[in-house]
């Protein structure tokens, strides 16, 4: 049993390492932001629709763009670690696999929250979507949905990198697994924009929370098996 303080310290150090690496290389986050911007511009250019119709579909668009940009981060989470043997070195250190997983999830969660914030501003600017009208509700959807996305995305990223499969397998594997999050977040965002904060909104939020809790727990338990050679 690893003491909580040791676990938290390991997670913090690993997170610092990954943030430092990202700050030095500036590869993943800028690529994800640029991809997000281009997707928003493309979608808005292609969908010249009445404002009411736009409000109906902006929630779905937002979470689809978050997913696509997020896959860049998920895929990169373990690529560098694998390529330079860093992951093998980490496994030799007295660091639990759960700490490695938690640090990667935290990193991806931070990236997703930052990307979603920028995307919300872009959709507000270009689509005049009332995403900022109910900040508390929007924030709760953003936090819960991104936690579920980061938890499952990080695990699938690790699997795809460990098996060294070429091709865009991560999106194929990830999309069916995260569809409940994308649908739930899209619907909750639509209801929030329509100012319809009632029982249905609460149920979608509960779905997002339950999904995140189950996926985080399952992933923490199985991550050790993913790292095995």
């Amino acid at each position, binding site marked *: 049993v690893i003491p909580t303080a040791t676990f938290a310290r390991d997670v913090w150090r690993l997170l610092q390492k990954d943030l430092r690496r990202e700050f030095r290389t500036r590869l993943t986050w800028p690529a994800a932001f640029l991809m997000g911007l281009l997707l928003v511009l493309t979608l808005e250019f292609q969908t010249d629709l009445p404002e009411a119709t736009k409000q109906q579909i902006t929630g779905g668009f937002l979470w689809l763009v978050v997913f696509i940009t997020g896959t860049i981060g998920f895929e990169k989470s373990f690529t560098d670690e694998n390529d330079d043997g860093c992951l093998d070195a980490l496994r030799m250190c007295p660091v639990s696999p759960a700490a490695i997983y938690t640090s990667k999830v935290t990193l991806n969660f931070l990236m997703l929250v930052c990307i979603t914030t920028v995307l919300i501003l872009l959709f507000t600017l270009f689509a005049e979507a009332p995403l900022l009208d109910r900040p508390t509700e929007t924030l709760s959807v953003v936090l819960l949905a991104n936690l579920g996305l980061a938890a*499952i995305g990080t*695990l699938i990223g690790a*699997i795809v990198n*460990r*098996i060294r*499969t070429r091709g865009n*397998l991560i999106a*194929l*594997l990830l*999309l*069916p*697994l995260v*569809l*409940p999050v994308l*649908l739930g977040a899209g619907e909750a965002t639509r209801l929030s924009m329509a100012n319809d904060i009632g029982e*249905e909104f609460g*149920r979608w939020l509960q*779905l997002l929370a339950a*999904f995140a809790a*189950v*996926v985080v727990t*399952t*992933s923490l338990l*199985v991550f050790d*098996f*993913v790292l*095995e050679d």
Partner: protein
Amino acid sequence: MKAVANYAVRGEAWATYSSAALLAAAMLAIFLVAPHEQTMGSPQKILYVHVSVAWFGLLGYLMTAGFGLMYLLRRGDVWDDWSRASAETGWICSTLTLATGSLWAHEAWNTWWTWDPRLTTSLILWAAYAGYFLIRGSIEDPGKRARTAAVLSLLGAVDVPLVVMATRWFRGIHPVSPSMEPTMQLVLLLTVTGFTCFFVILLIRRQTQLGLQRQVDSFGTLPS
């Protein structure tokens, strides 16, 4: 030992014949015994098959995850064979569920497909296991393949409660436990039992086949 093997072969043959007879009886009961439904008419009979395959579809995925967990804990190849056989059987049932559901929807709702919560979550489950087979096919190392598939099956199993509860949690048009006549209930029970026996036999046979395949593979290439 040879006598035990003979009994096993005979037992499996008897089980196969019995399940075939049960399935045939269920089919006859659907068309000859089950009462004619007033609103939908004959297309309502799809329901008996639809419920039977849908039930085993969900069970198949839970078994895939269960056997996958056993593989991770025990590391016996036999658990991976069971897990793969369950996934294949479950996926066949899931495909049949979507197909029969679509036929039923066309008659009941006048559309082949609608984005009802139950239908959507069923499609997600089907797609998740398509990904499971995709990753199995892309890994050559048997140990790594079994381990990765087991982890994925556990993640996929998260979707099963969503499929089951979708009609209760979210408003949709898919029926939830509709009331039926006692004869209809009996026919449904017979059909579910018949299909369950048939798919269990299919599962056992596939697992045996996978075990034999592994033995053949372990012989390696014969010298020329």
